[in-house]
């Protein structure tokens, strides 16, 4: 599907709309993934009650924060890491 790329420019309003919506969806998709991962970490072995208790809520918040920290940590390590290790992936 092309949104009129060959017959002139893309409508700026439409292009902006798509950009905003993709950004929003990227966020939502990561929330889906994080909710999945952090449910396993914090809720899988818990008897579910009528409310989320504060201990589990704290666990969920920490889980999200540490997941992002881990992502950033790995990015930093890969950026500064020696090339011999990364070259094993032979992505070139």
């Amino acid at each position, binding site marked *: 599907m092309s949104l009129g790329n060959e017959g002139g420019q893309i409508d700026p309003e439409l292009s902006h709309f798509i950009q905003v919506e993709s950004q929003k969806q990227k*966020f*939502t998709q990561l929330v889906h993934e994080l909710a999945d991962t952090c449910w396993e970490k914090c809720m899988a072995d818990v008897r579910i009650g009528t409310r989320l208790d504060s201990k589990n809520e704290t666990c*969920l918040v920490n889980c999200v924060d540490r997941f992002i920290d881990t992502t950033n940590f790995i990015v930093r390590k890969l950026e500064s890491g020696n090339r011999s290790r990364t070259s094993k992936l032979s992505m070139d």
Partner: protein
Amino acid sequence: MDGFSQPPGSGGTVDKGQIMDQVKTQIALANAQELLQKMTDKCFKKCITKPGTSLASSEQKCVEMCMDRYMEAWNVVSKAYNAKLQMERNRLT
């Protein structure tokens, strides 16, 4: 998906607002499907430990509670992720 089947500029005017509405509907549908799938996975694991010949009423109650908790957890995660992004952004600027 009717709006997409018309080639642009071929007489039939594609209404921009209509396209946007359709995109939003498709996104909402995809998110609902994703939520349904994850919720079913988690709540089945939690509540139906020994599948019997029917969904017992205790299992139904458990699934109902589990659905509410999953949505609650989803919202907590969403808020936490948003706050973390904000913090990271402030740290960088």
